[in-house]
């Protein structure tokens, strides 16, 4: 009973905040609602018994990705009224994307149901005292090792690409040499003078 109540509350909050993301006027508020949606989705994961995925969702998406979103949205001076003018012209394309996503999800749900209508257990959670994290780790690092490593490599390439695009070495710019700064000795920086009264430094 309690689980059902929790599910409906979390699901309703997820949908409501997801709707708010695209409907509120202020972009920063939109990101805040996106964070709320992530959070509720994590709650849904916990209800499913996938506590490891829930925590990863919070750590990766809420704790890191959404912070960067927020960062960028706050820094940019976005004129949202201007952005909204193209709403109607983008609507058909948006609907196509949404329809495709929905069709994929429906297909998965259909495929995951066996012939007698009972849902196939997707994740044998807690089988033989194996925790969530361990079960995922075993699959990820054995069967899907290659795919997993490839995904990491793609992210790595993207990161290097971003650095290459933004890193510029301009000539004639004074750069900081940390080793030289740290390696400076007292004798190089300070000179002690014995000043006699009435004579000054001369």
């Amino acid at each position: 009973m309690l689980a059902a109540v929790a599910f409906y509350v979390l699901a309703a909050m997820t949908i409501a905040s997801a709707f708010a993301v695209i409907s509120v006027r202020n972009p920063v508020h939109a990101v805040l609602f996106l964070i709320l949606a992530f959070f509720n989705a994590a709650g849904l994961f916990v209800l499913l018994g996938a506590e490891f995925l829930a925590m990863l969702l919070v750590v990766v998406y809420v704790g890191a990705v959404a912070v960067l979103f927020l960062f960028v949205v706050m820094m940019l001076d976005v004129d949202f009224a201007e952005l909204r003018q193209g709403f109607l012209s983008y609507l058909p394309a948006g609907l196509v994307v949404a329809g495709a996503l929905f069709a994929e999800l429906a297909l998965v749900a259909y495929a995951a149901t066996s012939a007698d209508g009972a849902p196939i257990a997707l994740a044998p959670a807690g089988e033989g005292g194996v925790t969530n994290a361990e079960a995922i780790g075993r699959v990820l690092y054995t069967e899907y090792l290659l795919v997993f490593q490839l995904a990491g490599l793609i992210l790595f390439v993207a990161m290097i690409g971003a650095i290459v695009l933004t890193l510029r070495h301009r000539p004639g710019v004074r750069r900081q040499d940390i080793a030289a700064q740290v390696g400076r000795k007292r004798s190089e920086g300070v000179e002690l003078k014995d000043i006699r009264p009435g004579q000054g430094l001369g």
Partner: protein
Amino acid sequence: MNPARDYIPWFDWPVEFEWGLMKTGQVLGIVILLLLTLAFILLFDRKVWAAVQLRKGPNVVGPFGLLQSFADFFKFVFKEIVIPAGANKTVFILAPLITFVLAFVGWAVIPWSSGVVIADLNVGILYLFAISSLGVYGIIIGGWASNSKYPFLGGLRSAAQMVSYEVSIGFVIITVLLLVGSLNLGDIVENQRDGIWMWHGFRLLNFAEFPDNLLVGITMYAMLVVFFVSALAETNRPPFDLPEAESELVAGYQVEYSSTPYLLFMIGEYLNIVLMCAMTSIMFLGGWHLPWGAVDDPWLGFVILYGKIWFVFFLFAMVKAIVPRYRYDQLMRLGWKIFLPTSLVAVAAIGYYVTFLAPPASAALAGG
């Protein structure tokens, strides 16, 4: 399960209700304990700081100034809440609430002694990591909602700083859980039960497995240091208090906050610091166990863990009193160029130890 059920046989309340009532009581107890602890730890912080500077510190309210924090509390609460005219009102009020609530939420999984914990999660340490990585929102939202230059700069600084140091904290956590083979905080403490030579920070003293103890001991001691410094940076504590930096940014993200919202920010911030102290004690300093042996008595265990939290906080206070503030670029360099590679190498080293060198018992636990 609940004795009250036996005493009142005619009232047949559902089991969920009993469970909820029990948990609510536990949560209430922890919150009161934490707030009282905080009142005295704030005073302790100021006293240590004062002692280093050869001052007396707060000494007027109550004997030795013991009631200073309570006086401060009433001062904050009775002041007027000023909300700037250009501020985004809802978000402005939301920010300190987020900080305050998140600071408490993390304590749900902290085991106080053997078996005494509100929520015994399988992924306890990941939960703590997730909650502490959310702490940045209160600051960045508060900085933005104030609609003012200094708070905004403070908010941006802190966002970059906290995201940077989270990375190395994550790797340090991975080294610990590689050694333990479990994400459960209770298991992490029980793995250190034999004595100080099994505490993760001091595995160097475990001469029984010489020379392997050199590899794991030196690595884990380095990780203790990395975690301690990263915790300072993650909680915006001096010498890494750049989001506030009163000499450059007046008070950073807190400039526009007054009265109770400011109090909520401050309580949240200090509670996060104490949470980091508790994490250090649990992950590296043996939790509720004594240096010379295991402790299974819940009350004694609680006292020991509580004492360790205070000891780590004392170290935090000493750092605040002694070390001058870092420059921002030095802070970033320390996080990305020193801590990140160090902790990455440490993960590899500990992985090598657990796979090839660890004694059978520990290897069995790690290998499942």
